[in-house]
């Protein structure tokens, strides 16, 4: 892992990974692009199948670290099953300790019962009450009842036992199809929390194309999610 340490204090880490509706993937990758963040390192997760992506002849690791000022981002292009999610969460914790991260934030998706709503809603869940004010100040309702599983649950489980608080934003989305529309709401919310300006026109103009482009990642993500859910009693769908 190669890390360049920034000068600023109060470092915040954002984490993006494929999950329901690929909301985290779209939101975090858009922020990296929009804020023109620089890649400063890679994260290795034990037992992850060796994978490299090639873009324009450049080799990219599947889990990369970006930085600009006091904002760090870890983004994974690969979905995690239950076992890999735990390894990923521990790797994130190690990164936080080495880089004086003061809080972490994730974006994920949750299934909405009423899919005809005009604008998806966002809910927040925090590990430490010290982050409650972020929800309150940004008028984000708390995720009050239900269960979470998968990578976000693995990260929350690890960080709730540490002194580094974690916050996860859940955007209502279609859980089985890529949902860039829900991601736009997540991006706007994140920008408000981080007090940065983000123009979402670019992603809004490409919503339909993004849905086609990310079909395979969505399919791989569902496979990973269903591997996790298969051990529980509430697996909700047949996916074909």
């Amino acid at each position: 892992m190669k890390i360049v340490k920034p000068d600023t204090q109060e470092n915040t880490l954002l984490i993006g990974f494929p999950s329901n509706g690929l909301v985290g993937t779209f939101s975090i990758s858009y922020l990296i692009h929009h804020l023109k963040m620089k890649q400063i390192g890679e994260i290795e997760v034990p037992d992850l199948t060796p994978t490299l992506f090639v873009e324009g002849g450049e080799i990219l690791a599947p889990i990369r670290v970006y930085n600009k000022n006091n904002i760090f981002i870890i983004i994974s292009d690969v979905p995690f099953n239950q076992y890999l999610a735990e390894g990923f969460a521990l790797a994130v914790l190690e990164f936080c300790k080495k880089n004086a991260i003061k809080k972490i934030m994730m974006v994920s998706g949750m299934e909405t019962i009423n899919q005809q709503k005009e604008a998806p809603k966002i809910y927040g869940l925090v590990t430490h009450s010290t982050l409650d004010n972020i929800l309150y100040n940004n008028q984000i309702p708390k995720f009050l009842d239900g269960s979470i599983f998968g990578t976000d649950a693995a990260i929350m489980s690890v960080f709730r036992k540490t002194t580094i608080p974690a916050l996860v934003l859940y955007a209502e989305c279609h859980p089985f199809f890529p949902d860039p529309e829900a991601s736009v709401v997540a991006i706007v919310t994140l920008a408000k929390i981080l007090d940065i300006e983000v123009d979402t026109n670019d992603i809004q103009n490409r919503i339909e194309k993004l849905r086609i482009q990310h079909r395979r990642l969505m399919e791989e993500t569902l496979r990973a999610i269903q591997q996790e859910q298969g051990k529980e009693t509430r697996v909700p769908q047949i996916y074909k």
Partner: protein
Amino acid sequence: MEDSYLRFRITPPIIGSLFDDIEHKTLSPLSCLREFDNHWRVEFDLPMVGKKDIKVSFDGNYVNVEAKLKQKYSEEKLGTITKFEYFKKSISLPEKIDSKKATAKFQKGRLEIKIPKRTAGNLIKIN
């Protein structure tokens, strides 16, 4: 609420369902099938498609969906650019469905087909 989201049947996923047909310039859409008390619901993700360009048909226990894209979608694979023009997919449905009473709606680029279950059987008298 129309559907009870707590009543699903647990079934493992079927893997490898996306097969784009380069020769016929056809994309395979994402889809999902869910069971409810008295009906099945199958959804297809059809972005870049208009409602009037979608054809849905039943063939026995298969539901077939074909849709023309509003504009060609280009994708490069191994140096070859393919311009896709259609979505096309057939899905095998469970038995005992009443496809004649199926209904469909298309919103936000998602096609939702509701297929009632065929109910048959004898009532048993309780003594």
